[in-house]
């Protein structure tokens, strides 16, 4: 991961750390983002995502380590970086008492450009927003506010986009629409770094970094994150889920048992290749313990399985946030 910075990398971060008083917000973070990549940071509140984005957009300096954006140093070249990046902070930061169009015109003017010049890049989003052009920003729905904020971050045609939790607190339908827009932007070749607490959004990214407690727990394409899971994982479905959960935790091979939507995921002490045997044994054991109807099947670990397993590895106390 820490190979010499290739000239073409869009972001190169080496071992950065940042503390606020006693709190270590970032603790030795390193990664690179390739040009044109849609790169996601996935982690809960307090993981360090916002601190990282504020460093990359030159708003604060790291205590240690280095960060380069578009080949420019976040400390020495801050003015060059600021004119080349688009940044959408986590907190809604547009002017609530300006209309949709006034906000957009304002942000264009701040960067010395016009809406007309930015038209091509904002077009897919502007199509959805233009019916509300004369509405005050504070009267927009949550999903529409986020789309306007994205427009304002894009209107000066940045070479890289930083989106800090654009889908937090937004409903499931608006979240899907927002990711569809990001996919369209990706198709234009724009590099995008985005953070989210929603694990199910990982699949939308080219690569994701799992972040927790100021540390990166892993970086990989979403389909490859589970590669190092190291244990057999099985899904269990049955009635009276809470009783089933309590029972499964008492199985001698259980490392962890967690609810996953309509299923329970059982991580076994055995290796991944033993998963079919583990599932057969577990089905028999459940039948002998009053859950004859339970369905048991081996599965591949998803992003959230991986995140939880690595969270446990990274912080023995269990609760580092």
């Amino acid at each position: 991961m820490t190979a010499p910075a290739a000239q073409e990398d869009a972001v190169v971060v080496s071992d950065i750390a940042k503390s606020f008083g006693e709190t270590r917000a970032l603790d030795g973070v390193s990664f690179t983002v390739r040009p044109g990549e849609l790169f996601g940071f996935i982690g809960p509140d307090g993981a360090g995502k916002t601190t990282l984005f504020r460093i990359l957009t030159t708003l604060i300096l790291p205590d240690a380590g280095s960060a380069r954006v578009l080949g420019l140093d976040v400390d020495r070249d801050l003015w060059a970086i600021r004119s080349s990046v688009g940044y959408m902070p986590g907190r809604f930061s547009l002017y609530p008492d300006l209309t949709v169009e006034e906000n957009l015109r304002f942000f264009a003017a701040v960067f010395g450009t016009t809406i007309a010049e930015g038209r091509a890049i904002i077009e897919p989003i502007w199509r959805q927003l233009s019916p509300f052009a004369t509405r005050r920003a504070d009267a927009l729905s949550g999903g529409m506010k986020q789309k306007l904020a994205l427009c304002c971050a894009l209107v000066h045609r940045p070479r890289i986009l930083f989106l800090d939790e654009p889908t937090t607190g937004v409903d499931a339908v608006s979240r899907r629409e927002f990711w569809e827009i990001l996919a369209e932007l990706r198709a234009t070749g724009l590099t995008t770094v985005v953070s989210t607490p929603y694990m199910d959004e990982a699949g939308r990214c080219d690569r994701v970094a799992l972040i927790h407690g100021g540390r990166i727990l892993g970086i990989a394409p979403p389909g490859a994150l589970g590669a190092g899971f190291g244990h057999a994982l099985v899904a269990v479905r049955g009635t009276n889920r809470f009783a089933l959960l309590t029972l499964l935790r008492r199985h001698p091979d259980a490392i962890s048992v967690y609810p996953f939507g309509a299923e329970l995921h059982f991580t076994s002490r055995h290796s991944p290749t033993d998963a079919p045997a583990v599932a057969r044994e577990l089905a028999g054991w459940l039948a002998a313990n009053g859950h004859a109807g339970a369905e048991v099947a081996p599965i591949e670990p998803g992003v959230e399985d991986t995140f939880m397993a690595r969270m446990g590895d990274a912080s023995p106390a269990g609760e580092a946030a």
Partner: protein
Amino acid sequence: MSEPAIVAEGLTRRFGSFIAVDAISFTVERGEVFGFLGANGAGKTTAIRMLTGLLAPSAGSARVAGHDVATDPEAVRRSIGYMSQRFSLYEDLTVRENVELYGGIYGLSDSEIRDRGGALLESLGLTPWARTLVGAIPLGRKQKLAFSVALLHRPAIVFLDEPTGGVDPITRRQFWETIYETAARGTTVFVTTHYMDEAEYCDRISIMVEGRMVALGTPAELKERNAVASVDDLFVRLARAG
């Protein structure tokens, strides 16, 4: 007192010509975990404000814990607990001070506050943190404390408004186990969430679209009836159609 925890009949709220909640009718049984879902702006918050006695209905009725929300909102408010995503704890008070403050607000006596508060901190593993400022304790513990404080006066129903937003996946699941335990003791849990996997943990769910309740049933029933694999797909299909 064998009356259901919540009975809403034609519950409606208008703001001028805008109908925020449009004649919703549903029942929540005692001890049930009831998921209240809907897109942003679908009317969830307005409905919850009526059910918690904070906003009078324009038409229809709702009885919560046996009390009418329109004629007896005070009794409704005494019978419910409430916890929102923005935990309503005071960050610059200690853990114990928060418990004492809320115990007082809920009208508990000093001895009740001492006994229940002590038992509460013990059961949450917070006794060593009793003198710590709430702002300095980990998010997961803060969340459990907020939930427990909402239960301090032993309400019949607790309303949880996006209780797990932004919380890590392990803490989120631990919180749901606390919800199950609470419901198993007979407390009704009325919960909103944007995590569709959590909707699957509810006994029954409802989905609101543009002020109306367009789906009501167990997650399994609703998935089967709409031929979808998950509540997420169900939600997107119904909310987009609306």
